[in-house]
């Protein structure tokens, strides 16, 4: 999988889980301020990403993730996908 595919897939999953139109899920979008996601929404989104990509994202790693771009990077790092 390359970065483009990964990005598309992550954005798709986030859009579904956060119930927002996919065009709103841009790398710059902030979960709280722009996508109206509360903490439970984020947990669910992370669970979905974990399931889809077969990765584990522990609580500590979730803390710094404020934007969609950071989430994409987090998954990319775990899968060894280069930008």
């Amino acid at each position, binding site marked *: 999988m390359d970065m483009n595919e990964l990005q598309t897939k992550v954005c798709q999953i986030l859009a579904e889980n956060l119930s927002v139109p996919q065009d709103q899920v841009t790398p710059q979008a902030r979960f709280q301020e722009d996508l109206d996601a509360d903490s*439970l929404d984020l*947990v*669910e989104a992370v*669970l979905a990403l974990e*399931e889809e990509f077969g990765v584990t994202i522990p609580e500590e790693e979730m803390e710094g993730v404020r934007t969609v771009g950071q989430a994409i990077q987090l998954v990319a790092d775990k899968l060894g996908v280069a930008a």
Partner: protein
Amino acid sequence: MAEATVGLVTGASRGIGRAAALALARMGLRVAVGYRSDADAADEVVAKAVADGAEALAVFIDVQREESIDEAFGQVERELGPVRVLVNNAGFSKDGLVAKYGTATWDNTMDVNLRGPFLCSRRALPAMLKARWGRIVNVASVAAIKGNAGQTAYTASKAGLAMFTRSLAREVGGRGITVNAVCPGFVETKMTEVQSEEIRRRYLDLTPAGRFGTPEEVAAVIAFLAGGEAAYVNGAVVAVDGGLSA
């Protein structure tokens, strides 16, 4: 729902857990009968549920160990389906006065009665969140609200379980998942049969009903909370104690 809902009851080889597993089976759920020490008894519960027409499975689960919980859930998921009804019933009780209470016994009590339900709930939640439907019923105790000399660890763990219930209910209520607790009074089970005559007498005197409860009477409330009709009951801590705490 085309397929029957799957329920898991921890500590279901006897007592309230057993009665709860059988009650869920009668409701039409596919039931995983969780046990730790008595596989034979768990098999009997399964046999009874099956004889009543249900699909049931005995599964080893030690709520003190994360790996055991993960394995147990994995097994249930493979053989019955994702757990959408979780009854955290496994409990431990050992009386003793604080001045001489062992640290290991304290830890054990907390691990089984409070940490266990947390770990099991955490493991069960993803599937419930995904389905936007779930039921978690925690078996606390009248000891969650009434103190008892010699039961500091037990009462503290059960009170903790009651508050865990309330807070979790607030977390997931918006996803069609309810989290409630039942607080049995003095019920005749293996856990209470070790109580002295003096304590039994005292409980009897304090219970307006004038008798002890049966596991089936507690299971009936658990079953109700686990069902579709109880969708608006969330974060409730329900006394099933013959009026003991009234």
